[in-house]
């Protein structure tokens, strides 16, 4: 349930070792969210994250549990939803922070690797998001936060496997927001630019790069206000709009 300031009680973080997911969880714990379920592939990393989340508030330590979840595994989402029901009772907020960047240069030559990136970022993830949304619709409330990316706004030569999958997920999630209006479920789609996290340590920072804690703060502020899309940093909205309308001959020559 949410309080008047839109702080959820029970929070599901899918992609439980994501740094942005962890930052969102910590900021929610600071505001008073009391129960978290982290779902992801690395139990070890999630246990570290769980410790950090439960230590955020001294007065009332949040209870955090972890569950193994691989979006590519058969039946994974069904068991996730069952676990969420058991651990959280209601999923008040779900943060979808699942993603894999892949390696464009080698994945281009290996269609099976490309398929995996597209599955993790879109073709397997979208049905999982739908299942969570439907469970929220059945309980009559809920807020889905889906991490998209500026990479999906205009798919670029340098990153088109990841970018096209993110484009698909972005379109899916923003339209899901419209579809969910009668059910009482809200959807917020976050489009960060380059975020300095472990997913990007091997890359040179791009212009307008931001941090996980900034993304988390802006995301929660947008969610509080019931916004469907949020750009981080906000200037990215302008940059992305310009970029989307650049003539192809220019766009394909931009190095990042």
């Amino acid at each position, binding site marked *: *349930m949410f309080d*008047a300031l839109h702080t959820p009680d029970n929070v599901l973080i899918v992609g439980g070792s994501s740094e942005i997911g962890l930052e969102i969880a910590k900021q929610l714990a600071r*505001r*008073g969210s*009391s129960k978290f379920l982290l779902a992801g592939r690395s139990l070890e990393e999630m246990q570290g994250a769980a410790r950090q989340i439960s230590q955020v508030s001294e007065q*009332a330590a949040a209870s955090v549990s972890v569950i193994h979840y691989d979006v590519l595994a058969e039946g994974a989402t069904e068991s996730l939803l069952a676990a969420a029901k058991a651990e959280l009772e209601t999923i008040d907020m779900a943060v979808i922070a699942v993603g894999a960047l892949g390696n464009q240069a080698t994945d281009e030559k290996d269609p099976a690797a490309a398929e995996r990136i597209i599955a993790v970022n879109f073709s397997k993830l979208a049905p999982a998001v739908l299942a969570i949304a439907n469970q929220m619709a059945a309980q009559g*409330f809920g807020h889905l936060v889906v991490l998209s990316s500026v990479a999906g706004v205009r798919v670029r030569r340098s990153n088109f496997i990841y970018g096209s999958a993110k484009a698909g997920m972005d379109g899916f999630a923003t339209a899901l927001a419209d579809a969910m209006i*009668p059910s*009482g479920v809200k959807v917020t789609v976050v489009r960060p630019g380059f975020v300095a996290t472990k997913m990007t340590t091997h890359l040179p920072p791009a212009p307008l790069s931001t941090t996980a804690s900034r993304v988390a703060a802006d995301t929660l502020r947008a969610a509080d206000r019931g916004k469907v899309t949020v750009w981080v940093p906000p200037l990215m909205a302008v940059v992305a709009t310009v970029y989307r309308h650049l003539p192809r001959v220019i766009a394909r020559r931009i190095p990042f």
Partner: protein
Amino acid sequence: MVANLVELNGTPASPEIFVRPGTIARGLGRAYGDAAQIGGGRVVTQPDDVSSSTLQGGVLSAGGGVSLDSILSSYVPRGWFVPVTPGTRYVSVGGAIAADIHGKNHHLEGTFTNHVESFDLLTPAGEKRVSRDGDPDLFWATAGGMGLTGVITRASFKMIPVESAYMKVETRRLENLDELMATMVGSDHKFRYSVAWIDCLARGRSMGRSVLTRGDHARLADLGGTLAGDPLHYQARPVASAPPWLPGGLLNTTSVRLFNEMWFRKAPRLREGEIQKIPTFFHPLDGVAGWNRIYGPRGFLQYQFVLPDGEEEALRRILEQIASAQVPSFLAVLKRFGDANPGLLSFPRPGWTLALDIPVGSPRLFGLLERLDRQVLEASGRLYLAKDSRAKAETIAAMYPRLGELAAIKAKVDPEGLIKSDLSRRLGIL
């Protein structure tokens, strides 16, 4: 949040209306928090049908959905007034009992339920008449019980006779908190109704500067020529309306400071014997339909607490923090409470109650209210559940130590736990 809305249309109310995952009654939906909501569950409403009410020997029997607005319109012209009215007349009889509402006369006459003789309660175990003497446990669990013991379908309560539809009012301007508290302690008992508006933005020496209005129903002899000709003429209708397209941010520190300055300056130092209409005295905000829209799309929350007598210093500290946080609250009222009643979750207890409207928006609001919660608790005070929309379960449990008794009584009439609200889920009540 989506719930399935069901109107109880009189005959016959059946326990089958209670369904999973939860069912809760709603009166006029004016509680500021989540008391009459249940996301994914069922909300039960009742018609505002005053024609089915009867008045016998000064005791009114009315349906649970009947509003004080309708009761006043029907009975003031016949010389009867409700025993307790809050700052709005848009509350239902059922809601008045469930929230155990108080009004400007609490210091002398207690809460609404103090005047209730019995009510009919629909529960999953069936419908039964619950009287103050016959079933005191269920009666006092329901008084202030936020609807968690069932749906109040009808209630009988004592009305008060009045000679006119007018109030005789004394207005006093006080320069600071000390003056205000001394005046209220010294002479509130001489007035049936009393409440003070406080400027929460004033700091330093003028912290707590306020306008205190006190009064009683005007007697025939108090009225001048024209009014005396038709002393029971009562008409209450919104005179203005706030449009739905108002943007957020209209109420900020600057605009509220201006409003507060004006409000304070326009009040007389002392004016006695002024004749006011009932709506002007009791329900000024009801004059503007949709007044809440001035808070814009993000809305506002209410924060109301009571501190026992002797905790004046804690009240002063809390006011100081509100003033220095510059929370733009243009509706802040202070009132003295009289004796508490046996209601397990009834809010009022002897002392001071402060109620604030606060626009949602400032990121500092979370922290401020959490800090205030702790100080209220340390000073043996508590928050008003009908206003609350954000407190934590453990805070409320510490403020209302008799929650466990409520749970035991509720379990008898609702063994399967079908009566629930978003408030009860948020606060882990049952």
